[in-house]
């Protein structure tokens, strides 16, 4: 904390997943997977540009992805891609006001209608689908 400023929580507070339920976890995963996919996109451009070095250069670079580390990175990329897509659809629908409940006079204990089971199911589905896609990707990469 920087006490003399606005007492902002900063990035540490922004990415702390422990206080505000699965919705905040989804928010953090969305940011991380977005950054990860951006990094992969840049790496992918670099990788495919190796074709300019001819067939040998291209084959050498492809070898890198055939290692255990390469497989692990690609599996993570698959997971990020699926989570970002499925959760992105949920968030986009929410952004249009779809599935966020209806305004009503609040009653104690004031459970927020926008944090409803439909959206929670959407988040859990995104996580499960990402995990299944990663496992499938690993099975394909290891040729099983």
């Amino acid at each position: 904390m920087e006490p003399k400023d606005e007492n902002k929580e900063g990035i540490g507070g922004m990415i702390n997943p422990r206080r505000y339920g699965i919705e905040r976890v989804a928010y953090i995963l969305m940011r991380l997977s977005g950054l990860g996919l951006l990094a992969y996109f840049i790496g992918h451009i670099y990788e495919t540009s190796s074709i300019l070095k001819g067939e040998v250069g291209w084959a050498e670079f492809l070898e890198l992805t055939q290692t255990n580390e390469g497989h692990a990175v690609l599996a993570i990329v698959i997971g990020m891609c699926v989570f970002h897509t499925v959760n992105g659809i949920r968030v986009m629908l929410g952004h249009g006001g779809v599935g966020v409940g209806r305004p009503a006079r609040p009653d104690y204990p004031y459970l927020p209608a926008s944090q409803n089971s439909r959206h929670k199911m959407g988040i859990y589905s995104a996580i499960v689908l990402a995990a299944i896609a990663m496992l499938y990707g690993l099975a394909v990469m290891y040729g099983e």
Partner: protein
Amino acid sequence: MAQVSSVAEGKTTKSVTLRIARYNPKHDSKKQFMEFNLQYERWTTVLEAILDVKKHFDHSVAVRYSCRQATCGSCGMIINGKPRLACFTKISELESDVVTVEPMNNFPIIRDLAVKFERLFDTHHKIKPYLIRDDSEITSNEKEFLQSPEELENYIQFANCIKCGLCNSACPTMATDSSFIGPQALAQAYRYVADSRDKGKDSRLKIIDDSHGIWRCHFAGSCSQVCPKGVDPAMGIQFLRGYMLGFRS
């Protein structure tokens, strides 16, 4: 760091350690915590415990409060890591032997637990929190603007806001962006846009259609989870964005 024991009177049931953040931006370089051992009842609120400390041990603890009944919005603070109203949070419901109170995040600190609200009030004023019409209630022939109970239901939930700032303190965008308008102001923009008597929708949507406006909300929903009045700012913000994206008219 002080170690003090409370006067245990009457039918006290349990004891708790209250840790209070002390910090004066005028001469302190960092926050320090003072600890007080207190007796509390099942119904004792965190605010009552802090006032107990002020009365019996250290009157210099700075805390803002007024109504003591979750109505004025003055006593927001971080209690065991989450923004809550001190007068609306019972020690017993925290289920912890240690209660740590700190000033709300994303607000400048005046001293100890008291924070400055200027920015929240500025952003609240910015969205024009009043009915916008060409005519006025006084000159209108009808003398009042009629509204059906159904039309009232569209916004009454959002009119419950007490400007406590807990939502702004929990928001992950507010944690890093000093210029973000914040969930409190956005929810209030929806409150007026959804009011059938109001004609200021376009001007309000223009105000929040800004790089530090509504587009910086990513629907994390933390604002709604901490709101002590059931306002559900995240819902209002998504509906508001629905107007801007053409999902609603």
